[in-house]
């Protein structure tokens, strides 16, 4: 499959990239880092822009310094980072389960937190979508999942983002109006098209992880049919802090691949703070979260299964973290 035509820009710095973005903004552009996600969509003629600004030549965002991860660090590098393996195992677990090993060698963490939402009616070839009559997220004004829906319900498919949200990580953005730092949990919209509150000109430069994360037990569980290639059918990220008496000091559980954004569950988990963690409590939390979870029918496994797996994954993950 050939790619549609576009101009490619290869800036050497963030600043230069943003300048280019302002020159071509009227025509439209995308930033591209690893490209493993975006180029698939481009091949399928999905929301192709006339300009592509490649971040590959930018050196300043390529390192891991303590808990600041440059956005251009690859998922494979994160999986192998000794500090993160020790102090933020959940992120390592999440990143090492993205796509296939060959994808992870190229795909970056910045790209993964911004990965396009996926839907069975969207991630298809032009011929397929022609035959379908296209969908809300690309060429049509009708959602094929829920025809009356006014916004897109494509599934949030990042593996790393739920984990980052669970530890209250921040994203450093740089754009035409300068730098800013946003809470990862406030970053995502509920719309499968818009996806997040990033200004068009902005680039994620850094993932900032709170230092306190090292004191947490973090973990990530994902259901997929194959242990490679597959995007999550449902995923759970958890960050847990329990004291000596096994009392919960802090608990965050975030679901991925259920809705259009990483779903936090504070309403449920806050109720258990200060209580002693037990198998029965884990079961209760898991059941409550499962009950609330409402997946859309737009991936290749039935909704009923994915909903059920929310509970199973929660239970397993919390048990694993408590026992570790």
């Amino acid at each position: 499959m050939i790619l549609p035509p576009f101009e490619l820009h290869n800036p050497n710095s963030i600043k230069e990239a943003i300048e280019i973005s302002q020159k071509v903004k009227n025509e439209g552009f995308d930033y591209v880092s690893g490209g493993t996600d975006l180029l698939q969509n481009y091949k399928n003629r999905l929301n192709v822009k006339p300009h592509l600004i490649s971040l590959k030549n930018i050196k300043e965002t390529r390192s891991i310094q303590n808990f600041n991860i440059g956005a251009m660090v690859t998922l494979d590098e994160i999986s192998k980072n000794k500090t993160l393996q020790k102090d933020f195992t959940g992120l390592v677990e999440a990143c090492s389960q993205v796509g296939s090993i060959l994808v992870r060698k190229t795909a970056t963490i910045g790209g993964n937190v911004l990965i396009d939402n996926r839907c069975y009616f969207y991630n298809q070839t032009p011929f397929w979508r022609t035959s379908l009559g296209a969908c809300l997220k690309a060429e049509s004004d009708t959602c094929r999942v829920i025809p009356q829906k006014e916004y897109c319900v494509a599934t949030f498919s990042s593996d790393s983002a739920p984990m980052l949200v669970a530890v209250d990580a921040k994203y450093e953005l740089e754009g035409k109006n300068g730098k800013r730092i946003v809470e990862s949990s406030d970053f995502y919209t509920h719309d499968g098209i818009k996806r997040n509150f990033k200004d068009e000109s902005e680039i994620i430069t850094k993932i900032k992880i709170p230092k306190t994360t090292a004191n947490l037990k973090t973990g990530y569980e994902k259901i997929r049919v194959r242990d490679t290639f597959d995007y999550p059918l449902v995923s759970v990220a958890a960050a847990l802090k329990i004291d000596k008496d096994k009392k919960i000091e802090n608990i965050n559980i975030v679901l991925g691949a259920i809705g259009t954004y990483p779903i936090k569950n504070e309403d449920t988990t806050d109720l258990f703070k200060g209580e002693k963690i037990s198998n029965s409590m884990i079961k209760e939390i898991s059941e409550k979260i499962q009950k609330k979870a409402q997946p859309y029918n737009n991936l290749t496994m039935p909704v009923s299964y994915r909903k059920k797996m929310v509970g199973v994954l929660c239970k397993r993950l919390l048990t694993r973290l408590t026992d570790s």
Partner: protein
Amino acid sequence: MSHTVGKKTPLVDGAQKVTGRAVYIDDIVLPGKVMLIGKILRSPFAHAKIKKIDYSKAKKLKGVYAIATAEDSDNRFGVLPITKDETAFAIDKVTFIGDQIAAVAATDEETAIKALDLIQVEYEELPPILKPEKSLAPISHPDQKIQPWSKYEGNIFKTVNQSFGNVEKALKKSSVVKNGKFSFNGVTHAFTEPMGVIASYGSDKKLTVWSSTQVPHYLHRALAEVMEMPMHRIKVIRPYVGGGFGGKSDPFPHEMAAAILSKKTGKPVKILFDRDEVFISNHGRHPTKTEMQMSATKDGEFTSLEIDALIDGGAWGSFGVITTYYNGVLSLGPYKIKNFNYNGNRVYTNKPASGAMRGHGAVNSRFAVETLIDEIAEDIDFDPCDLRIQNAYEPNSTTANGFRITSCGIKECIEKVKIASGWDKKFKQMPYGKGIGIGCGFYISGSALPINWERMPQSTVHVKIDFDGGVTVHSLAAEIGQGSDTVLAQCVGEVLKCDMSRIRIYSKNTDTAPIDLGSYSSRVTFMAGLAAKRAAEKIKKQILNAASKIMASPIENLELKNDRITELKTKSSISFNEAVREALHDSGALHGKGHYQAPNLNPGLPRVDELRGKESEKGAPMGGSHKGAAAGLSPSYSMGAYVCQLEVDAETGLVNVEKVWAAHDCGKALNPLAVEGQIEGCIHMGLGQALMESFDYNRNTGRIENPNFLDYRCIPPTMMPDVDVFMIESGDPEGPFGAKEAGEGPILPILPAVANAIYDAVGIRLRNLPMTPEKIISAIAKKK
């Protein structure tokens, strides 16, 4: 001691492959920048009348050389001469999403794609017929007929009714009767190389077609019919083929389109599929609904088997007649079942055609048979392995429908895996979640009745030796990765006892190769292997005659060994080359021709009757005289038994297959490296169909839901179990050096072995494939 046969032999074309030098279809570069790129316009509707095609705008686009539609050709073709229902381009109506409407030849891919965008087609949509049950019903309006020429009622493509023995009577003496409704989603080949074709119509009015195909000969025939050209003006070249598994064993419309476009433009035209087009072309395993009933006495004697199969053929016939028979008759081994009823219907639906895929026609019914056997065993308190052994055929038996079983190592297979797996200590004794299960298989070694009922041999091989002492072997058996070139080299090398480096295989070109029907129905080792062996034997005679002259000793005293000819009494010897040169003097290159024709076929069929006694064979006659007696008839049958051990995660439904013990009776493993590779590959593919592969269609539109490798899931390396392979060598009396097939049969046992192991692990019986996690957890929940 054997010379090459039985030794692990790396593929003779392997060095080219591992160095990246092997030339596949998309690697072909023709001299001069003359090649045009062809692209195909496909139907977005499953069922619609074509009212109008307007390609005037597309034709005007710069860089477009030609556009072809049904105006250019309306000749029908199809792999089976009795069911030719395909055309190069849809005529008047489209019958599935992806049906080929027009094709463009342009300077490059981008121009060709843009030209497709400019072709306007007016359709009148018809309600698609997607459920096979619906296709059984009579039609009330001619528009509902998917393929108008079919002689059956409704949208039925083929009906088979067969009955042997007396099931009713058998049931009376049976103490256990098990039945079930099974359903099998379609699966597809998923070879890694997309199909592609280059056609070049020359100024000499000759046509050359390169195609990634398993059946150059059938393509040759179809091209002749579609292009209305005599076969001698057409040459088909098969480059290296990146996997087939049955998916490249039909002549295809895109091959016709390339030929038509090349003739129109006078330039070579290449059409290379995108991955979604490969899925759209499908020809994979038929989605099937099977009702089956099996009975046995309390002493463990199988008494009867009844099968009712509804087979979803999609929009074309393909190999469908054969599929319809195979779903029944291939269940008549390896167990003695004397009373049998079969009712099979293959129907047309508005979906991409189903066709032949590894284990063609046998896989789904085999799954049902083998799981029902386990249910019977449980009821009458038999060990499943012992029950199978008790009912298994002995060598030199005849099945209820007249299949002649010669070599037969099924009992040995079962015993082997039973012991190797530690069955007696595991079955029913492992903790909840862990299980072990057995399954067996039975398959043909080539079809005794050729597709075209002619007196032409099924395989012919030429062997030639010239002054350089090199042995060239000419055949049209298609090397598609299974190692057919290597096995032919071994068969020739074994006879001539020469160094393997002397032997070169030419199997790519219809101009230079004698006809071979191609690589399907697991026929090559048996049929082409025998032809190669016979051709080499003729050469050997000429060489020995020459040696006899040089050494002044009768042939009986000469021995050919390791590239030398030795006089056994004097121990003097001459080299292979010396003898060859002597034989060449005054005559030129040595030629040997060998062929294979199945022996003594079904006497009931008039055309085939002429064949009787024409080929001198030691084999006994085979086949009955009932209608369809030749279907499934093979000169030999392979069989096998696998044990599978696995763990089921009862909460997520995910299955971890830990280990497979696989015993397959291949007669004689001519190349153990290739036989093991086939068995391991079969397990990979069978596990996929058992657990995750599924060719999904939208229920309302007939659109394929997963035309890519992300959503059509094959087993990845990380999920492949360890496999212990046991090659059981029963020594086939007729096969080359005792060999029979090992390419397709080995897929059969793994699917039921998995299902039976899942039952052992968590006590559920799933009857719908694939056994996905959600089906597994719902079944577990239901049981509780």
